[in-house]
């Protein structure tokens, strides 16, 4: 067992993990943050995407010990509080951007992380980013729509036309 310290969603977690424990398992089982989902455990589906020091990463492809001291944001840490949603969460709700919801945490963290760093990304660029993750229910139509709406909401004055829906 190795003792490590993680900062997740602003909280400090001192946990003991086997060196082989993935970050995803540590978040889910040692930190109790089960919003991060595991769809394949081989780095393809992206359901386990979290933000590590602001960058989207696959939590199933990283050992928890590699995240020692890092600042991590999971889906539970996107909304500022229990009564307010992050603009990406709000856009997913408004636009039916989810069905079964299993892939949703990974998409939300991916999109939130990317838009926060690239607020003026074009639609084609955002499509490429969304291609990081798999969804089996929505056919991606409303995920793309929600992403574009979230971008407008997050950038405020940068866009003057309102949502079409």
């Amino acid at each position: 067992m190795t003792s490590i310290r993680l900062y997740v969603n602003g909280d400090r977690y001192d946990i003991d993990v086997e060196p082989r424990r993935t970050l995803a398992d540590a978040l889910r089982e040692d930190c109790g943050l089960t919003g991060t989902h595991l769809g394949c455990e081989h780095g393809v589906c992206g359901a386990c995407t979290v933000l590590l020091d602001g960058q989207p990463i696959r939590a199933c492809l990283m050992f928890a010990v590699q995240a020692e001291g890092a600042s991590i944001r999971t889906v539970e840490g996107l909304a500022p509080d229990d009564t307010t949603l992050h603009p990406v969460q709000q856009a997913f709700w408004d636009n039916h951007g989810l069905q079964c919801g299993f892939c949703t945490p990974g998409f939300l963290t991916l999109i939130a992380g990317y838009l926060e760093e690239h607020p003026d990304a074009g639609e084609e660029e955002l499509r490429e980013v969304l291609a990081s993750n798999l969804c089996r229910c929505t056919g991606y139509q409303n995920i793309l729509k929600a992403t574009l709406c979230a971008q407008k909401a997050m950038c405020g004055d940068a866009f003057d036309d309102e949502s079409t829906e």
Partner: protein
Amino acid sequence: MSGAATEPTTWTGRALPRLEDPAIIRGWGTYVADIAARNTACGYVRFVRSPLASGRILSITTPPGVTVFTAADLAGVQPIRAVLHRPDFVEIGTPILATDVVRFVGEPIAFVVADSEAAAEDAAELVEVDIEPLPAVLSATAALADGAPLVHDCVPPEHPNAPNTMVDGRITTPGADKAFATADAVVAVKVSSSRQSAMPLEARASHATFDRATGRTTLYATLQMPHITRTGIADCLGIPEDDLRVIAPDVGGGFGAKMTLAREDVALVWAARHLRRDLAWIETREENFLGAWHSREQVYAIEGAFTADGDLLALRGDLICDVGAYCCYPVTWAVEPLMALVELPGPYKVAEYDVRSRAIATNKCPIAPYRGVSRPMQVLAMERLMDRAAAQLGIDRVEIRDRNLIDEYPHRSPTGLVLDVASHRETLAAAAKLADLEDFERRRAEARARGRYLGIGISCFAERTGYGTPAFAARSTPYPLQPDKAAPVVTPGFERVILTMDPSGGLTLRIGASPHGQGLKTSLAQLVCDELGMRPDQVRVIASDTDNTPYGWGSYASRAMVIAGGASLIAARNLAERLRALAADRLGALPDDIVLEDGKARRSGTDEAVDLAVIARDTYHSSHLLADKGEPALESVGTYDPSGTFANACHIAEVEVDPLTGKVEIKRFLVAEDAGRLINPAIVDGQIHGGVVQGIANALYEELIYDDRGILVTTSLMDFLPPTVTEVPDIEIAHICTLSPASLTGAKGVGEGGTIGAPAAIANAISDALRPFGVEVFHLPATPHRIRSAIREGRDISAAPHPADGVEQESTR
């Protein structure tokens, strides 16, 4: 196209955001693995699986210290029995763990129990299984060859079926031969599909908790049919159903793959009871591909008899479904062949019919339903037939379809189905208009001048949805109930709901259906609230818990909005009637004068009103004063069991094919859909979007590939190749709404349509694009490799071998 011109005044018809979503988008969803992760006392199970397609188990050895269970430990556990009552059905039980022999790669042989998932994985590695290889049959053609090894050698020799033939259905009308003999043209096509996986993003997961106080076990599992799962497990273990509670919490997608009873779930419940401890089994993606049901490995040879004008007079066919090694419970390995047998004609009029449809056992993973079941292949066969006939007879592709589409209702098909009112010709016209076919020809010519190849493909289909007991019963020949013994056949179909208004006026709707991402709770709340004058957020829908819901059959086969919806409507109307009567007594009016709106019962045209919450409170707490002398509660039960309805649609795909690389780009994808009344249009569109993209995946990308030893080689998402957003076009949808008396809510099911229509539209579009090369598509997926090879060799992408080819050969696809 989903937005209505004016917002409806009712809750139904509105694209409400879903009630399910706020928890999920915050990461507060509760999936099975989440429950297990929070249970620190939970042990973990890992299965040891067969590495061989066929073999005899010689020994299983385990080092000391590993807790392992094999078939010998489960000696008292009965096999899973899935039965139909018909002479051409072969009943084979599925043992929970392989006993003497293994029949496919991935079959569970043993399982270990350890304190953590990682420790269980380590322990499973230490279990040594010695297996003597036996000959395996790896294709339907090989299974039907003379002297083929038997997948199951226990079939009685007097059984009428040929070896390895588990279902052999046939429907023949008297005039079929004559129609073929006198037809102006006979057009033949042979089509096939590679094996597919439904691939829900959440693989299987189960968590069994044992309660020492009651001796009961609770199984949390990712399921579509919790009640029949409980029945199936109780039957295997020989326990009363009440000893087991089955809960499907948030379920990460199903698409049919979570209908079927898992051997692993039976084993897990047995072990939790045996060890008197909480256990979890979280399936890996590799296991999911190996053992969690495949589908659609089918080859259909069909012929159509046409007049010179293009009228389809008769159909004949020989349909082969490779169903793998075991029979899925409860719908059986007849599910693919029998659906194909009765539904092949789809939306087309055809008077005469002679079709045989078979389930062939092989040493591969068992098949089970996957969104659309056989209909993607039925539609592929019929739509390729229509295009071939159009070309052969010199008739326009839209015209030949239009003249053959059903346009008088109800329509009785030659297979005995009755198709209710629909809009087959109208959806074709609407899709053709959206596609702007004349402009397409202009664009095609322009593209061709620049060395590019565009094609367009049409696909029309009827999607049988919302079918209850009558439809499932028709899969068996009639049988009487025995005086002293329960029938072995499981006949699904009805749905029940219990609608309760609590003393504060809140509504609880308990349903037997079991949603897993469809937003059903939102749609049912909308439906109920229109009857009761309440808001959807005042309705708590309780589903997927056998302790808390009435017995029902779950969510599958595009049925929930029709059947659970109909049952909910019945319950809501009955409750509304009681509320109106109680209000009338209070307001000194007649029940017919009372309207329920905004949470009140109002005397029509006046300001006299009473809150429903006041009526509710008095009904429970002052029941002795109720004027109607009714029940001291506000509760209503709804049961609905319809024979089914048919949604319909036309899909049109426009593609560009790069002949150098074989890459297909879908430029446009159009859907003209008639799902009847749209309860929540955004949810309906979401079902179409997701369905179409699974259809695109089937058509272009995904396949499960076995090597020549029967080992599955596509066991990661990278190998199976599900599409991402960059492979998917914008999907354009037009709705036509036909209200059918066959559905109480007016809704027709819409869950499977996208997946049913898209593959054929794409196969036709690619064939159209490659006309200059003389290449047509008869096998899916049409991968770049297959397309490029066909172009280079100047041949079609041919169907897989069919037993009737007469020549045993390996596929050269």
